[in-house]
């Protein structure tokens, strides 16, 4: 890996980025809180979940350093976890939502 040598001292991203991510997360929290009171019909849930997914991605990429994880296994573990989570949620809902009695 190219960053082996520098990772000894500066595995962290610059502080400016940390504060930027923090500010973005706070703004998104405020937005999701306010948008919940706006009439959007079924899209209220969609907007809320999209914002939550963006926030979670920001935390994982920049605070948890997935973005710069030297070890590729870490990215694999993250993606595999998400895949199995989607399998769990997706197949369960696909089953229940297509049953005539539900």
């Amino acid at each position, binding site marked *: 890996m190219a960053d*082996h040598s520098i*990772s*000894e*001292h*500066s*595995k*962290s991203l610059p*502080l400016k980025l*940390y*504060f930027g991510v*923090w500010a973005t*997360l*706070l703004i998104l*929290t*405020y937005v*999701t*809180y306010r948008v*919940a*009171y706006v*009439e959007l019909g079924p899209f*209220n*849930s969609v907007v*809320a*979940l999209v*914002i*939550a997914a963006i*926030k*979670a991605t920001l*935390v*994982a990429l920049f*605070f*948890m350093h997935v973005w710069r*994880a*030297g*070890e590729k*296994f*870490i990215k694999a*573990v*993250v993606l*595999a*976890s*998400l895949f*199995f*989570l989607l399998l*769990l*949620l997706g197949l*369960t*809902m696909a089953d*229940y*939502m297509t049953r005539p009695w*539900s």
Partner: protein
Amino acid sequence: MAETVMGLHQEELQHPELLHHFAEPEQQRNAASLGMWVFLGTEIMFFGGMFCAYLLYRHWYFGDFGAASNSIDATLGAVNTAVLICSSLTVVLAVWSAQTARRALLLAMLSATMLFGLAFLGIKGYEYYQKFEEHHVPGPSFSFENVRIPRHPGEYANPRHAQIYFSLYFLMTGIHALHMVVGLGIFSWLLLMAWKGRFTPTYHTPVEIGGLYWHFVDIIWIFLFPLLYLIDRHP
């Protein structure tokens, strides 16, 4: 021969924390991170089961879930989200302090993280107190009579269905709070080790890994907040 022995000796002096079964500190750090990520993977599936139950019942009893969700103070939930986001910032600053050998800042950031964590639990406790007062805790004294369903004039929530919402609410926020308590324990230990000066720019893996756990608990809350607090809200 003597040089090799000297070389090994030097290596050990440079990295006293390097365990003998790792070739270099980098490898040891990566192994530790990977271990924590695998654990977080199991945590994703653990919480995933609860999210799955939530999605299903919300799909079936959307109106009742909306009515029940509206009885919870969304402002407290939003404030708690902000508190946790601030604690995540202090965690990355703690990791950065350890990496750049700023001991005083490291101690301050670890303490700040714990204070934010305690603030979160305090607000959560107040919220639970409100729910107990209103008899919204599932059980024999549960009561959710004559609560209107949002956007459906003249329709009232089915208390049995609302009770499922509150069961999921207490289960999910309760287990999340339990994770916060565990996180506070981890951070107390990190604070003690930092106080003893155990962390250096070359060795601060516990701070990084403890931080990963803390951020993960933050991410769970990022999803719990809109799912539990913001269903079918109205001006």
